[in-house]
Each structure stands twice: as structure tokens, then as C-alpha cells.
């Protein structure tokens, strides 16, 4: 029965894909210059791994902040701000401006760097299991 349910789940995931009701929540809404490959590099360079687990970026596991594999599906950033691509860039550039009590520091990203990182985070595939 489990097997049947699993098969059905996979089948159900296939088929025609219509856009979700709320538009413009994907990386497509970012400026064209945003580049996911560069974003992945910024994540290494700025030491994001000191606090976050990031899929495809290797480093010591840390759980000071939440893992970033599901940022694209997350409805809110820091529980306060709707997770739109624009807001994600704002948050990355200056977290304390949005949540003064957050443990996440302002690491001094430029607008373009933050857009690259947002493009990378939004490009990560959704993982089916809680992670």
C-alpha cells in the first residue's frame, strides 16, 4: 500500500503544470543580471556556511541559522516579511534593518551580489522531505 501511495504521489506530481495563483515569486522576477552561479560563489566567499547549511555548497554543517534549501518555498523571511524576490534581496543586504533582533549580521553585500545570491537560493529544487 505504501508503495502504491508512493507511485501515485509521483504520478500526481507529473502532468500539466499551471502557474501558481500568486505570480512573480520565482527567480524570473529578479533583474536579468542576477546570476545563480556567481551567487553560489558569494555564499562561500561571505562565510554564509558559518551559520547555514546550503545544498550543493560544501562546508562544516552548522545550524545556527536555518538551512537554506527551501528558501524558494518559504512564505516569509525571518517570519516578518513576505518572501518575494525583491524582499529576499532587501533582507540579504541588511537583515537588522528588517528584524532588529535577528542574529543574522549585515555582511555588506552589494545590491548585485545580493541579487546573485537570491537567484541561487531561488534556483534550488524543492526537496520533497522536510529538511
Amino acid at each position, binding site marked *: 500500500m505504501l508503495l502504491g501511495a508512493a507511485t501515485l504521489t509521483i504520478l500526481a506530481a507529473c502532468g500539466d503544470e499551471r502557474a501558481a*495563483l500568486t505570480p512573480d515569486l520565482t527567480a524570473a522576477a529578479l533583474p536579468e543580471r542576477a546570476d545563480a552561479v556567481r551567487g553560489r560563489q558569494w555564499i562561500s566567499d561571505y562565510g554564509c556556511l558559518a551559520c547555514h547549511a546550503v545544498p550543493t555548497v560544501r562546508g562544516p554543517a552548522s545550524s545556527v541559522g536555518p538551512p537554506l534549501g527551501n528558501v524558494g518555498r518559504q512564505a516569509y523571511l525571518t517570519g516578518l516579511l513576505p518572501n518575494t524576490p525583491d524582499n529576499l534581496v532587501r533582507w540579504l543586504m541588511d537583515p537588522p534593518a528588517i528584524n532588529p533582533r535577528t542574529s543574522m549580521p549585515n555582511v555588506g553585500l552589494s545590491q548585485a551580489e545580493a541579487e546573485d545570491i537570491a537567484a541561487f537560493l531561488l534556483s534550488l529544487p524543492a526537496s520533497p522531505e522536510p*529538511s
Partner: protein
Amino acid sequence: MSRWKRVAAWLVAAMAASGAALGAAVIYFGWYDVSATGPHTVPVHALLDVALTRSVKVRSADIDVPELDSPARIQRGDGLFRAHCVQCHGAPGQAPEPYALGMNPAPASLVGSARERPAAEMFWITRHGIKMTGMPAWQYRLTDEQIWDVVAFMRVLPTLSPEQYRDLPQAEPRASEVGAIPGATEGRAEAPSEAPRVGDAMAGRDALQQYLCVTCHAIPGVPGARHHVGPSLAGMADRSRIAGVLPNTPDNMRQWLMDPQQIKPGSAMPALGLREQDARDIAAFLQTLSNVD
């Protein structure tokens, strides 16, 4: 017919018969738990979920979506949403009413639905309702135009912060205006409470269902808890902070669960009216969610 074919045929028939007998026994002897406090088993939940997904998808395939961007339409939808939807589904920073917290299946967080489901499906579900879920059909209560108004509003719902949602201008002021959540913590008959005991993780796992945690969070091992309105709770025991602001201790978790707004004003997580013991138990359960062996 050759011998092995006859044996195989008998075998298949016998298996079908015993399967049917087992199914009938489960039903007749009341082995399956229909209570709202006992969640479905994982396979049953998965099966029902697929049935729902497929049914909605197939039936909404031919619906034409009208224009949903007009501010007037969105504002009408906002009024209808506050009048008819928020009581069970809640809204950013606003908890559902107490009666909705005990529903199983739990009413979905519509912020999550709008981020995942297409417009036609949202319209279909609102219009026709869903059997045995508590979701009523609005077809006989609202016109199709009005249902599209609601869909148009739900379209912008995921882009609103709790504060923006609260401050949206309303067509006419109503007595049941939002703000503090009446009924979430006050006016509730306090169940006779036993002396507080230390948190019990198993009791916490049951309590999770009753405060709709599963509608917003992905929680390993809990059927149906696969939403990303709030953060995933996988590995919660390993995190150093709660909501990014509070050191992750059981007592801080208890306080956070009982009143998120006091600890982090403006949080999308509403106060759900947890009793102290339930908060202790859920905190104990969350302590079991570790990725570190």
C-alpha cells in the same frame, strides 16, 4: 488450463478474498480511528492527499480564469475573505478561531495554498468545497464573481506582511474588526488542569495537530506536515535560536509557542492559545527533532 495457471488463479482469488475480509474487519470492528485527535496513518494520509490533488486538478482543468488584477476586485475579495475565510484558515499573523483549531484535516494556510495552487484550482475548491474536510461549498452562498474576488485577494495575500494585512483599508468598518485575536487566548473555558508536569514528547506530537502547526510547518514524521509557510522544524533541536531571536531552550520554546507576538512583534506566526502544558509538551517534542545522531 494448465496446472500452474489454475493454482495461480486460485491464489489470486484467495488473496483478494482475504484482503477484502481484512478490510471489512478493520471497518466492522472499528479498528480505524476516526477521531479528530488521532491523525491518519502516513499511507492513508498520502493516499487521500493524492486523491484530492488529482480530483481537483482534473475537475478544474477547463476553468477560464478572468482578470484578477483590478484593485476594486481585490478589495471586494478582502472583505469576503475576512467575512468568510479567516475564521478557519487564519491570515498572516492571525490565528483561526478555536473551533477551527480542532479540525482534522486541518484547514490549510491560504498563504501557502496561493503560493502553490493555480487560480482555477483555488476557484474550484472554494466553489465546490471538499467532502469530509470541513471545507464548505460556497456555490450557493456566493456568486461566481464573488468567488473570483476572493481568489483575486488570495493572489496578493502571500505578498502582505502581517502588518500590511492588518492595516488594509476596509470598505466599511465592522464590529468583528481584526487586531487582537479574540477567542485565541481569552474567553476560553480553561480545561481543568492537572499539576504541571515535565514536557512529554508523545503528548506534544498529538498536540501539534490541535494547534494547526502542521498547516504551516514541515515536521518530520508528522502526516500532512509538509508546508513552508513557516520554517521547517526538521533539526529544530540542533538550532541555536528560536525565530532567529531567542536562545533555543525548552522554556524559551514554551514561551515562544504560547505568545510569539510578545517575543517577536509582527511575526507571521499567531498566538494559537496553547495551554501551558501543551506548550511544554510540544517543546519536548521539538527537542526530539535532531539531525545529529
